[in-house]
């Protein structure tokens, strides 16, 4: 009898000549691919997800992980995963889950956009020797500023500024809850955020006491499950975010199964150990923009109007109208999570087929808010597939005030985007709660790598600004004139508000 007709995705192989039987691979693999056979390491390749932990920890470079050459017969219509998912579903009757953002080959418009540069008629700037401003404030900006003269004739700002989040650079870490990622992963984000002068976001899993010291670099989230939300929590960070949707799973809720809820997570979420943590698909007190307004102001009342309130939505078809409603409902920040955004767990069918990519959504929202004359009323955070500083710069030129980084931050912690986060076995100690795996992720060590990444991107961003001949990120923000499209049709260019290259 066969074990499963869903053939393994990968073949893990050990070169028996090179192998010194140190058993590190057995120890390191979170998915129990390896076991000890008495005289050699045995391999259960069905379990391999190609996270490459074993590869990096094998001292002899004895391990190779290949794509399984015995895949189903190639077929331009029936792809490997289509056939494999049907087999899996036939065996279980369940909904196949996945982790991380969609890996389907939908067009990535960032790759069809190019950034301008100065030549001859306008000088570029050398960011290494001239000041370059990346500081960004998120929050409502007044429509006009009023000044008064005080003694000595100096003007003083009279307009009362709404609360702002101050960022040293236009990057923030995307919401990832304790439960979806490990506490050590959250600590890594917190340490880096503090060091960099930016913010992380609790996600909807409550705020663990170990993260409290980083409160001036934290956005706390309120979602449909209301996990860990009380007046202390609302006032703990620099802002409060209402989560309506997530790019990887627009329109569906969250569900952390009971077996993934040990004591510490239960404590942080303020629920009993072992029960499912269900975040209903909708917030059942929000059926309209008016209802959203009600919750926004319930939070503002509870925080005495001292914190900006952000509303996070998934990018969907009518995103521009929805965002306009959110701004009119009183949100200080609109967080738009694009189709390619990551997740700890989502049904494949939802992740790969619902929503729209961030580039379209961002351009449409920024344009709409400008047309309606309310762009200053809220900042825009763009998320969902920012893979490099180039993507970030293009997103900012399309209208984002800042970009949120989830997957790229996890990659600095060892993640190889294997997409198996939903199993809770992450060998890198990121999306798991198994203590023997989470101890591997030393927050101090990995925060250093994350800080390096953001520093590198900041330098790159300054180089781009210098080449554009501007000295502040503010000058790039929403400046679509500095972008050109390559290989895009007229309608897409029109939607993005971008000219074709050469014009």
């Amino acid at each position, binding site marked *: 009898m066969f074990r499963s007709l869903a053939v393994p995705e990968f073949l893990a192989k050990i070169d028996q000549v090179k192998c010194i039987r140190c058993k590190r691979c057995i120890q390191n693999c979170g998915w129990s691919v390896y076991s000890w056979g008495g005289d050699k390491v045995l391999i259960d390749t069905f379990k391999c997800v190609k996270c490459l932990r074993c590869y990096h920890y094998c001292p002899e470079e004895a391990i190779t992980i290949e794509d399984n050459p015995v895949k189903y017969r190639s077929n331009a219509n029936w792809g490997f995963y289509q056939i494999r998912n049907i087999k*899996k*579903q036939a*065996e*279980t*009757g*369940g*909904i*196949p*889950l996945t982790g991380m953002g969609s890996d389907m080959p939908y067009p990535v418009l960032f790759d069809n956009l190019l950034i301008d540069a100065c030549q001859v008629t306008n000088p570029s700037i050398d960011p290494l020797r001239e000041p370059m401003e990346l500081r960004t404030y998120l929050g409502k900006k007044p429509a006009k500023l009023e000044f008064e003269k005080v003694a000595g004739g100096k003007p003083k700002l009279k307009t009362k500024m709404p609360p702002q989040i101050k960022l040293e650079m236009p990057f923030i870490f995307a919401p990832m809850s304790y439960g979806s990622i490990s506490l050590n992963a959250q600590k890594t984000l917190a340490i880096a955020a503090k060091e960099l002068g930016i913010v992380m976001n609790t996600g909807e899993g409550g705020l663990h006491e170990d993260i409290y010291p980083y409160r001036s670099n934290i956005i706390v989230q*309120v979602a*449909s*499950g*209301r996990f860990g*939300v*009380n*007046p202390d929590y*609302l006032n703990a960070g620099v802002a409060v975010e209402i989560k309506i949707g997530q790019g990887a799973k627009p329109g569906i809720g969250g*569900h952390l*199964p*009971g*077996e993934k809820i040990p004591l510490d997570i239960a404590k942080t979420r*303020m*629920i*009993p150990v*072992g*029960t*499912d943590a*269900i975040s*209903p698909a909708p917030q*059942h*007190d929000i059926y309209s923009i008016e209802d959203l307004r*009600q*919750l926004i*102001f*319930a*939070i503002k*009342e*509870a*925080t*005495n109007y001292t914190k900006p309130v952000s509303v996070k939505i998934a990018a969907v078809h009518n995103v521009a109208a929805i965002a306009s409603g959110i701004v009119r409902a009183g949100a200080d920040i609109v967080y738009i999570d694009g189709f390619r955004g990551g997740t700890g767990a989502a*049904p494949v069918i939802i992740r790969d087929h619902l929503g729209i990519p961030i580039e379209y959504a961002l351009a449409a929202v920024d344009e709409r808010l400008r047309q309606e004359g309310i762009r200053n009323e809220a900042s825009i955070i763009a998320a969902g597939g920012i893979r490099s500083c180039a993507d970030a710069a293009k997103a900012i030129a399309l209208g984002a005030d800042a970009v949120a980084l989830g997957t790229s931050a996890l990659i600095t912690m060892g993640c190889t985007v294997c997409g198996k986060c*939903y*199993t809770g076995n992450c060998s890198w100690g990121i999306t798991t709660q198994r203590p023997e795996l989470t101890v591997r992720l030393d927050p101090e060590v990995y925060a250093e790598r994350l800080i390096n990444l953001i520093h590198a991107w900041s330098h790159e961003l300054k180089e781009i600004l210098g080449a554009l001949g501007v000295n502040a990120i503010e000058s790039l923000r929403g400046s679509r004139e500095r972008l050109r499209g390559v290989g895009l049709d007229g309608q897409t260019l029109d939607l993005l508000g971008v000219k074709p290259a050469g014009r």
Partner: protein
Amino acid sequence: MLTIDAKGIYYRELNSKVRDAVSKGEKEILLKNVNGQYYIGDGLRGETTITIDGVPGNDLAAFMDGPTLIIKNNAQDNIGNTMNSGKVIIHGNAGDVLGYGMRGGKLHIRGDVGYRVGIHMKGYKKQNPVIIAGGKAGDFFGEYMAGGVLILLNLDGKKDDRPMVGDYLGTGMHGGIIFIRGDVDKKLCGAEVGITDLDNEDNKFLKEYLEDYCKDFNLKTEDIMRVGFKKLIPASLRPYGNLYAY
């Protein structure tokens, strides 16, 4: 006792007056002429008792942590949203989505309640939120309930022939207890719910809850307990355990 006249004042000003008074240590506040102002008691902490004269607006006692609110009239929607502790006593009817995500404290309502009451209530450690409604309830009573206690009494059942509770009772329930006075039609319940009779332990707790309730409204526990109760509990703590393929 501090009296604040709410006549014609916007909620923001009214609530900031209340917050000021509470932070100065005021233990008793009377709000006169309240007429639909939102967010009364929102995020408020401490031991203050606030008596509300008039009908308060939505999101009463949202995120509240400690105070007692007494409403002499009807109240509206979203009362006790994510409330942490404290008490809300409503002498009239109340609206939809009461006690959303409520983690502790009590909501005592003398009259009817609307849809989605007790949605996603949870217990946590010693915190055990309790909602008691004296009248009837709409659909989705106790939806997604994850902890705490919901009690529906139907005390004035004979007044009209509406059913005492709507459809989808306890749908998605995965924790907590619902007590219903009278019989429960299984057809009304969500798939995740089991109906049982009360044991001695249940009766003891129920009595405790009802005694406190009766004190607030001048009722007699014995009168209420003369009619039998049914207890609704989740069939599983993991209702969706088999939904996914790994």
